């Protein structure tokens, strides 16, 4: 059975075109999003790991070393089973800082462009061998299926096809913001084809060749010859080396890093992959021994590596053969495309961009896309070159071992990222160079026949197909030793330590609070325009601003620092972490530090801890709860409080402070005091910088009303607070101050009252004298005129006496020290007295008071205090009435209550003020016209008399004006059983 080369090429192209169409449809959203991002697709896409090994390499290795072939699958299975402690931390760092490749992670963690470049070069060198392995497998399979075909031609055609599809598949993402969903689905489909094909071949072999499991068992027992190496002892060395390399593969293989971390749809998918990928690989490995034995039984005349094709051909099944070819070609092309894409990204970020940062580009994204495409082509052609010169002479397993040993050199640094914060860039670079050099000299050069160092040095051991693993361990051991020693001996920079902390397991970054040169987000755009161009700069800042949900123009230092970090993260996804960091450092710089140290960015840490909350367990969780408790205590403190850093940045602004100032914490926390409204800024700035720790009764006009504030300050400096700052308490003393003022006013009034009583008393004596003299005059004359004059004099003196009596009575009231004296009070008399008192005033001369209270209406109470009630009510009615208005005071009895109504014809009280009129100090009169205490006093006196008060405005349903104040007091019944008791004894 054979196929022609053009037909194989056509089948390959058709299959890859189908894959590309699938990817294209996915990218256009024609396939439901939830399918594309489902954990199953993610797990299947990770199957890219197996590559050509799944179809060809595994059977070949099983023939050589029995179950040793499982090591290639078991190592990575172990890594995924340990995902929570191995892969999740890397994923967390990658997601937080937009690190899209292992080189990015290295450059970020070790704060060195050299680290990133070295990792890229090492990965690039090592991956060539893996790519060559794929090319070799496909070209060999083509020559086996089409015996006349030239392997070189097959290699070149396959490489060209891969270049075409890699360029089409990849380099489509332009801003690091979206995943290659299409690529992921295509790779997942690839994996499905691989698995389906190998399982189908296994099943057909089992049934057609052995007649089922029992037949296989019988054959195994009965066959005395070689049944593969499956009964042989496992070679410990190669097993361990392969296990280790496969374990490391989860982290260090560029295509695996890309698929595992960059294309990861969710942490949930990673959790599923922790057992899903091992299960997939188990299914992939299950038919391998059966195919091997099938090949032996059918006496397939091919190398065991290609038994998958050989068995299908021996069974004379062309469709199955073609399926196995497609599965192999698809596995190889999938691995090549993904690893080339990943490597092109690394080379772009860590080799091209550090050498040449794009400036003055119209469209930086387009430029990046084209550079990446060119790099993809260069990498695949380099792999083809390697294959033609070296790779085609080597066995598949040796090609794999060469590649994986090179990549294994990245494992110490990768583990150091999560587990060894003390490791530094010097150690890493020294270790990596040592390991890579050893790998090159002891494995790459000898196997490529370019130089045989062990032979030249006359070492007792030279690498060959059986003992290569020794050199794998030697290179790794040297790498680890040098990395450790140099890291311990050399000094770690501060920058690197903080990055190490940020990357360590469960660590939080502790950024410092420093002032940026830029004072607003607009400044950011101007500063970044220099390296990126105006359009790109504007676009990037807008993007970061939208991600952080910041306002159009941001000026708060804390938010600007966040914005700076976000810009760096976004640029890192675009240009790689080193270039992004340099660019941000250079163009979005900080002001030079004034002091020796800077404070921690409390807001940043708080926010980070907030994001971290559901991940904190044990002691950390308890401490976080404690932190939250104290924070809540401060926030809910009923006294306004805020804290301010040494640089004037507001760090805390509690709820009471929000209520007092009517400024939301959201708007000012992280901003400087300068950002506050002027009156607050002047007050707080002056107080924070002043020497006083307390300031009493500072007057501040807020909303047109004066407020009196007490301020207290405590500095936070000390051994535990080296960063300094102060905490400020603001007490609102306005109510107390107003009460004090009112008290003083009342005291003054009381003095005036006492004075008036004294004057009234003194005036009373001469008036009594005048009255007596007038009486005498009446007795001494019969002249009618003189008698009339004397009567008038007596009438006027009585009037003076009444006035004086009223004045003295009023002056006596308001003495709260005295117990109320309750006695029957005739309301009409109270009202008359109040009218008399009011008539003394200059105001309202033309108001007519109409007292309609019946004489019989009596209540039990303190007459003077009730007079005070009516004076206040009538005064209000008078003030509200128009000139010449009439005020009617009516009264009647309703059951046991006496109802007194004061009705005026004034403008009425607006509805919104009705609820407030009995509040102390509430007044609508001008400042010197009223104190706002009158109705409050009325209310309390009526309460004391067990009555209540109602106000209706407008006065009646018909009228649209006027106010009716209705008092309801318990009526006094002279003939009730209580009448015989002294009323005062009841209380």
């Amino acid at each position: 059975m054979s196929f022609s080369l053009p037909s194989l090429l056509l089948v390959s192209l058709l299959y890859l075109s189908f894959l590309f169409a699938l990817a294209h449809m996915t990218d256009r959203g024609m396939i439901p999003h939830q399918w594309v991002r489902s954990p199953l697709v993610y797990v299947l896409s990770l199957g890219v790991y197996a590559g050509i090994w799944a179809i060809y390499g595994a059977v070949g290795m099983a023939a050589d070393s029995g179950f040793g072939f499982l090591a290639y699958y078991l190592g990575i299975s172990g890594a995924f089973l340990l995902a929570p402690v191995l892969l999740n931390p890397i994923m967390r760092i990658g997601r937080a800082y937009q690190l899209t490749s292992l080189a990015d992670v290295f450059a970020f963690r070790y704060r060195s462009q050299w680290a990133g470049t070295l990792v890229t070069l090492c990965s690039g060198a090592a991956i060539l061998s893996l790519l060559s392995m794929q090319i070799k497998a496909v070209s060999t399979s083509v020559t086996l299926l089409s015996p006349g075909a030239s392997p070189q031609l097959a290699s070149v055609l396959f490489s060209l096809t891969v270049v075409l599809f890699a360029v089409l598949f990849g380099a489509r993402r332009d801003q690091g913001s979206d995943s290659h969903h299409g690529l992921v689905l295509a790779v997942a489909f690839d994996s499905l084809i691989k698995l389906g094909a190998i399982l189908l071949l296994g099943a057909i072999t089992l049934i057609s060749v052995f007649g089922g499991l029992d037949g296989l068992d019988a054959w195994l027992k009965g066959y005395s010859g070689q049944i593969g190496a499956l009964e042989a002892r496992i070679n410990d060395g190669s097993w361990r080396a392969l296990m280790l390399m496969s374990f490391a593969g989860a982290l260090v293989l560029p295509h695996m890093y890309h698929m595992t971390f960059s294309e990861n749809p969710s942490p949930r998918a990673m959790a599923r992959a922790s057992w899903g990928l091992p299960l997939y690989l188990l299914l992939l490995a299950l038919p391998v021994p059966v195919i091997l034995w099938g090949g032996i039984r059918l006496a397939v005349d091919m190398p065991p590596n290609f038994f998958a094709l050989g068995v299908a051909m021996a069974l004379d099944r062309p469709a199955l053969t073609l399926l196995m070819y497609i599965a192999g070609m698809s596995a190889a092309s999938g691995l090549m495309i993904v690893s080339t894409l990943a490597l092109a990204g690394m080379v772009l970020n860590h080799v091209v961009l550090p050498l040449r940062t794009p400036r003055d580009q119209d469209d930086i994204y387009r430029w990046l896309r084209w550079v990446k495409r060119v790099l993809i082509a260069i990498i695949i052609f380099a792999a083809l070159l390697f294959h033609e010169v070296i790779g085609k002479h080597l066995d598949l397993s040796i090609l794999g071992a060469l590649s994986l040993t090179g990549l294994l050199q990245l494992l110490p640094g990768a583990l150091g990222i999560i587990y060894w914060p003390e490791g530094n860039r010097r150690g890493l670079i020294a270790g990596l160079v040592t390991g890579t050099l050893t790998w090159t000299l002891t494995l790459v050069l000898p196997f490529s026949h370019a130089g045989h160092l062990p032979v030249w040095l006359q070492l007792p051991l030279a690498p060959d197909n059986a003992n290569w693993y020794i050199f794998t361990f030697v290179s790794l051991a040297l790498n680890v030793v040098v990395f450790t020693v140099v890291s311990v001996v050399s000094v770690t920079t501060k920058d690197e330590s903080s990055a190490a902390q940020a990357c360590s397991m469960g660590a939080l970054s502790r950024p410092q609070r420093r002032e940026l040169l830029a004072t607003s987000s607009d400044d950011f755009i101007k500063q970044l325009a220099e390296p990126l161009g105006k359009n790109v700069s504007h676009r990037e800042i807008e993007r970061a601003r939208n991600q952080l949900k910041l306002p159009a123009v941001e000026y708060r230092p804390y938010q600007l620092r966040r914005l700076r970090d976000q810009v760096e993260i976004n640029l890192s996804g675009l240009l790689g972490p080193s270039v992004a960091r340099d660019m941000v450092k250079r163009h979005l710089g900080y002001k030079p530090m004034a002091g020796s140290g800077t404070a921690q960015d409390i807001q940043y840490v708080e926010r980070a801890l907030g994001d971290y909350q559901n991940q904190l367990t044990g002691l950390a969780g308890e401490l976080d709860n404690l932190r939250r408790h104290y924070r809540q205590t401060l926030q809910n403190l009923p006294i306004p409080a805020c804290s301010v850093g040494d640089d004037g940045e507001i760090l805390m602004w509690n709820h009471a402070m929000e209520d007092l100032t009517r400024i939301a914490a959201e708007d000012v926390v992280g901003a400087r005091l300068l950002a506050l409204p002027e009156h607050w800024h002047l007050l707080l700035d002056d107080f924070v910088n002043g020497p006083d720790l307390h300031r009493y009764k500072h007057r501040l006009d807020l909303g047109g009303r004066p407020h009196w504030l007490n301020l207290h300050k405590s500095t936070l400096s000390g051994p535990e607070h080296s960063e300094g700052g102060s905490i400020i308490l603001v007490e609102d003393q306005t109510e107390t101050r107003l009460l004090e003022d009112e008290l003083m006013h009342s005291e003054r009034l009381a003095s005036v009252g006492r004075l008036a009583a004294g004057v009234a008393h003194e005036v009373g004596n001469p008036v009594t004298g005048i009255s007596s003299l007038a009486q005498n005059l009446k007795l001494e004359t019969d002249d009618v005129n003189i008698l009339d004059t004397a009567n008038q004099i007596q009438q006027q003196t009585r009037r003076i006496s009444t006035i004086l009596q009223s004045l003295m009575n009023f002056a006596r009231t308001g003495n709260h020290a005295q117990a109320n004296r309750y006695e029957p009070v005739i309301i009409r008399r109270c009202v008359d007295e109040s009218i008399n008192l009011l008539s003394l005033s200059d105001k309202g001369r033309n108001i007519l008071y109409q007292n309609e209270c019946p004489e019989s209406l009596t209540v039990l109470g303190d007459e003077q205090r009730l007079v005070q009630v009516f004076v206040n009510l009538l005064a209000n009615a008078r003030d509200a009435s128009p000139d010449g208005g009439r005020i009617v005071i009516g009264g009647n009895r309703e059951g046991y209550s006496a109802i007194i109504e004061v009705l005026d014809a004034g403008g009425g009280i607006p509805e919104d003020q009705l609820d407030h009129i009995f509040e102390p100090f509430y007044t609508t009169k001008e400042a010197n016209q009223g104190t706002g205490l009158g109705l409050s006093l009325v209310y309390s006196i009526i309460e004391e008399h067990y009555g209540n008060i109602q106000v209706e405005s407008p006065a009646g349903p018909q009228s649209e004006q006027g106010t009716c104040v209705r008092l309801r007091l318990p009526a006094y019944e002279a003939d009730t059983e209580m009448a015989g008791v002294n009323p005062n004894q009841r209380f």
Partner: protein
Amino acid sequence: MYIYRLVFLLVLAIYIFSPNILDWWVTLGNAWYSPYLIWAGLIAMGFWLEWRRDPNEF
């Protein structure tokens, strides 16, 4: 970090002794697919751990 050290130790031990464990398992005369059973057991354990994992855990 205590738990991670324990995990590290366990993984190292399994790694070092894995060839011996597999050899022993194969030489017991078990069926050819018996190594896959150990592997499947590990996967089942991984599945169980993932299934009962508290979302708040690391």
